């Protein structure tokens, strides 16, 4: 088991005052709250913070922890509590904390013991246990699922893995990994929720099973971006195609279409292809964003033609908006 340095987690020194610890915790809790932070490991960091604060805010637990920190930590970073160690602060049974100790680490469990065992009796659903009846609906499982744009267009089958909580033969609540293959219909939107009835945690005492609720996200695509219901694609064209107009082929999601570039198009011009955006009752459009690109090298003949062009268009000032 690894030793957890709660002082390092909160970024405070061993001699920090309770006020400093509270301040550090509050600041970091705001920063790493999984609903606020976009860092990948925010969830784990937030849990560590809660655990560290749970110990350091309590003078009794902090004293015990300091003792262990002195004697229990090994040079290689692993940790074993001294033989016969027993916590006097007996976390989790006195009910003086509202933290959900089931979330805490093995390290915490080893030192302050009884946390998870003590709490799991309270309720199936996150320890808030307000229902008194023995018959309980299983908890809903909330999950996120990222879909590629192609999958949004065509619908798809996705495998999802998630954890449910259920009672074992002895009535203890245990976690179980569940795998499902889910058929996702075409036309999902970002932020839309899907419900899979009865696929969450099983109920207790004949209660109904919870649901699996999936929130859909869009995975970034290398070619297409999404603006509301519209799909945007940047399409490079040659200067002469922009000047003379052209019939070009552009990619759509899962296919391609022919598009007419109007004569005299500037870079940045947006062409709208009706109904080629996100599918649905009111399908979006595909927007073709024109980008004028130059060949890396011009032939001698081309340079001469440009020279002639420069002479023919001598009155054109591309920088007129800059007043120069």
């Amino acid at each position: 088991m690894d030793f957890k340095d709660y002082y390092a987690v909160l970024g405070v020194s061993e001699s920090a005052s309770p006020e400093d610890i509270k301040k550090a915790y509050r600041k970091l809790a705001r920063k790493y709250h999984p609903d606020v932070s976009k860092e990948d490991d925010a969830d784990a960091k937030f849990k560590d913070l809660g655990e560290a604060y749970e110990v350091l805010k309590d003078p009794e637990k902090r004293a015990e922890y300091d003792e262990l920190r002195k004697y229990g930590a090994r040079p290689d970073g692993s940790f074993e509590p001294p033989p016969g160690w027993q916590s006097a602060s007996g976390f989790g049974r006195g009910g003086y904390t509202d933290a959900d100790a089931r979330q805490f680490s093995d390290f915490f469990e080893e030192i302050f013991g009884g946390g998870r065992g003590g709490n799991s009796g309270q309720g199936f659903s996150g320890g808030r246990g307000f229902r008194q009846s023995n018959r309980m609906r299983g908890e809903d499982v909330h999950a996120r699922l990222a879909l590629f744009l192609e999958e949004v267009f065509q619908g798809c089958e996705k495998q999802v893995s998630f954890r449910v909580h259920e009672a074992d033969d002895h009535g203890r609540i245990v976690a179980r990994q569940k795998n499902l293959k889910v058929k996702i219909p075409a036309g999902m939107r970002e932020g839309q929720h899907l419900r899979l009835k009865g696929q969450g945690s099983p109920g207790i005492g004949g209660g109904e099973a919870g649901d699996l609720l999936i929130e859909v996200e869009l995975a970034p695509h290398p070619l297409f971006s999404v603006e509301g219901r519209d799909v945007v694609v940047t399409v490079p064209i040659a200067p002469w195609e922009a000047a003379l107009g052209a019939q070009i082929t552009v990619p759509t999601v899962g296919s391609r279409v022919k598009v007419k570039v109007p004569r005299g198009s500037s870079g940045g011009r947006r062409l709208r292809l009706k109904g080629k955006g996100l599918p649905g009752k009111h399908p979006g459009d595909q927007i073709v964003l024109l980008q004028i690109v130059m060949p890396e090298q011009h032939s001698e003949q081309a340079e001469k033609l440009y020279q002639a062009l420069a002479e023919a268009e001598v009155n054109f000032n591309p920088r007129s908006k800059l007043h120069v």
Partner: protein
Amino acid sequence: MTRKDSILTVDVDEPQMTLTLREICERGECHAEFVIKLVSYGIIAPVEEGPEERQWQFDLAALARLRKAQRLQHDLNINLPGLAMSLDLLDEVQQMRREVDRLNQQLRQLMGEW
């Protein structure tokens, strides 16, 4: 203690499912007063807002938002006006992050870095 189970293919049902006030309380593990307060602060809204609370119907996005509100309130000790503002700002931040990602992608493409 985990055991793996075989893969089951499941069809998604009722993507447009709604929840009554009672159901959203049950799933959110909270009292109706809390939901009513969230509605009055504009933090969540029933699909169709009527004067009769018993007739309110909530979509699944409202349930997800209710749970987010609960987490923020519990973890950061935020009161209701603060919660309403935090969630609005978080929405705005999320929208802006998405916008920045999208614009960055278009910019990279315009610069020829595909």
